[in-house]
């Protein structure tokens, strides 16, 4: 393992154990990012050529791999981020590093087994064996029950690592306090997705507890912690300001996001009051995201855009703006029930999902990885910079905006033709899918998807090489 890490990240011999564990998670995360893109591309190609892998690996499997790889790599990236900042925040190495490593191998092994089963077994008969060992068939949390239990166990070990380190250090910073509470919420929410019920209303009610309260509440707060820590390191923002903002973020994210859950309870059989409650609170969900932009822009302006870590700084911007546009604006676009009645379950949601996950979570993970790269390869000053990260950065943004734009056009057209003019039936679906405004954007999406994969390789190349050439060393500009 040390050898792989050295090859990918550089000389790690001086790193505390906690940060070595972080690099282990990030290595797998970046690889799974590639898996996500690969299966996304296959699924996108199946839209334009439905015969592709029709009998070998149908769309439901490629799409399942696409979204599951995403969830797992983002989560692994966050876990890596936690292990990376832990020694810094507590002033000591992680307690129980050995256990932490075992947790990593357990999680990675479990993910590998689940993915192999998805690829080679794919589906089972309609019985409980399938639920326990093949696939639970609930979007995003398809992982079979044995893996669910494993994931919670692993989260328990990670939690122990963080908690024990904090106890040993006898020091709880505001960031760690928020992190500790948020991680409990995050891990226990997952349990809400671990049972079978024939009642589809109950099923989807609890399913959203996991999915929504992860990505629109606890993940947002977790990213708030990680980005707050990143701002302290990349721009040298004082801790007092970061912590004040973080508490405001928690207030706004949980204050709007917890009952904002109601925007998933419009049409699943739940009572009508969710239309009002969900509509009101979810339309306020962009507010914390605006606050994050204000913060990032203000901080960067104070430092005249100068930093010792250019890629990390720019990924912080991408995070702030991407989160605001992807989660905030694109989410708001279809969150009111009066609109959602027609746009629910169309490509609108795909458009929103792509931009939101990219902006809020992909960017956040890359910020932390670049901070680590600087720490390992250029700790003494020369600023971390290269040409290739800029190419990857601009390239990924352009291709993502292209995909999101294409899906948005398709989504509006689908909403209009299938749901408003049409009667939302099987044949209305087919007619709307054949409409040029839906059909043609699917080619754009595929094209921009291929571009995205290319820039992913540029990104990986940059991560392998940035800061390694001493010739690139420049004058130190203080933060």
């Amino acid at each position, binding site marked *: 393992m040390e050898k792989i890490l050295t090859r990918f990240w550089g000389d790690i011999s001086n790193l505390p154990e906690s940060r070595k564990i972080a690099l282990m998670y990030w290595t797998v995360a970046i690889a799974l990012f590639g898996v996500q893109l690969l299966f996304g591309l296959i699924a996108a190609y199946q839209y334009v050529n439905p015969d592709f892998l029709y009998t070998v690996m149908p769309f439901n499997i490629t799409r*399942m791999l696409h979204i599951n790889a995403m969830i797992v790599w983002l989560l692994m990236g966050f876990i890596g981020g936690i292990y990376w900042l832990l020694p810094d925040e507590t002033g000591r190495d992680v307690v129980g590093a050995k256990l932490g490593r075992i947790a990593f191998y357990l999680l990675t092994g479990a993910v590998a087994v689940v993915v192999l089963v998805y690829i080679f077994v794919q589906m089972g008969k*309609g019985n409980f064996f399938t639920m326990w060992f093949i696939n639970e068939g609930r979007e995003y949390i398809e992982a079979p029950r044995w893996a669910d239990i494993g994931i919670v166990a692993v989260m328990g070990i990670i939690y122990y690592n963080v908690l024990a380190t904090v106890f040993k250090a006898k020091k709880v910073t505001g960031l760690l306090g928020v992190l500790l509470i948020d991680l409990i919420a995050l891990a226990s929410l997952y349990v809400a997705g671990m049972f079978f019920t024939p009642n*589809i209303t109950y099923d989807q009610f609890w399913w959203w507890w996991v999915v929504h309260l992860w990505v629109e509440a606890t993940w947002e707060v977790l990213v708030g912690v990680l980005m707050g820590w990143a701002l302290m390191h990349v721009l040298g923002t004082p801790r007092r300001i970061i912590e004040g903002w973080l508490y405001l973020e928690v207030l706004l994210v949980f204050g709007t996001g*917890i*009952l904002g859950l109601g925007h998933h309870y419009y*049409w699943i059989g739940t009572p009508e009051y969710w239309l009002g409650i969900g509509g009101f*609170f979810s339309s306020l969900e962009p507010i914390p995201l605006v606050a994050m932009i204000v913060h990032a822009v203000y901080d960067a302006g104070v430092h005249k855009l100068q930093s010792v870590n250019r890629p990390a700084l720019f990924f912080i911007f991408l995070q702030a703006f991407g989160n605001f546009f992807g989660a905030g604006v694109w989410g708001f676009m279809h969150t009111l029930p009066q609109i959602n009645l027609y746009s629910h379950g169309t490509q609108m949601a795909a458009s929103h999902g792509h931009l939101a996950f990219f902006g809020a979570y992909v960017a956040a993970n890359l910020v932390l990885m670049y901070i680590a790269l600087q720490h390992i390869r250029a700790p003494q000053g020369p600023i971390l910079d290269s040409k290739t990260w800029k190419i990857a950065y601009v390239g990924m943004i352009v291709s993502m905006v292209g995909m999101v734009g294409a899906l948005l056009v398709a989504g509006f057209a689908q909403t209009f033709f299938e749901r408003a003019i049409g009667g939302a039936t099987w044949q209305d679906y087919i007619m709307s899918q054949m409409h040029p405004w839906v059909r043609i954007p699917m080619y754009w999406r595929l094209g921009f998807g291929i571009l995205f994969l290319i820039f992913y390789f540029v990104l990986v190349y940059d991560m392998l090489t940035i800061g390694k050439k001493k010739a690139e060393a420049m004058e130190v500009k203080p933060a």
Partner: protein
Amino acid sequence: MKVGWLEVIVATLFLTLVLGAVWTRGRNWLDPEFWKRYAIIGSSIMFITLIVLTFDTLAKTKIGSDRVPPPTVINYKIDYKYDPEKGYFKPVIGPEKELLFGKEYSEEEAMELIVKGKLVIQSRACMNCHTLLGNGAYYAPDLTKAWLDPKWEKVMIAATQSKTKEEAMVKFLMYPDKYATWTRRMPNLNIDEEEAKAVVAYLKWMAAINTNGFPDHFGESKLVKF
């Protein structure tokens, strides 16, 4: 007093503001502690409200409740009509019977069928192509009211050489590759007859759930004329 959505919103915001103000009294708003206390108050009030609403929602959406009908609705005719009082489309159950597979199911038998149907739907990852109650993937049609879809009677009964709608549905589910009506075909998922029947029952039951009018004007299309 009847508590509606507006009361819940006003109460949660009011409580957050007032309790937060009391707990942060005398503190400067630039002090992180000020926002920490507000964050704790705000998050707790919202979470407690969610718990209360969860209990209420679960009680109102039990199988056999007004919104989520008992499994025996599969013995009745199910329709989807505009309710002028509510202002949205609502399922209409019965009163006349419409047997499924020519059989009247007891409560227990119907429930068994629903459980089986749900297991089949999950085991084939239906949600990663279709949407159910609007949730899932967008590669295939929404199944919320699939039981009521006019295409079964207008096209699929003849195409599958069946006598009834449910027979056509079973044949289609078992051999979707054979009865495809478009280039984007549903794959053969090795669904056997017993499983297919359970899925059909599930779809019929699901069509009877009150979804607050989603999808709007189902089946009344200006786009498709059979």
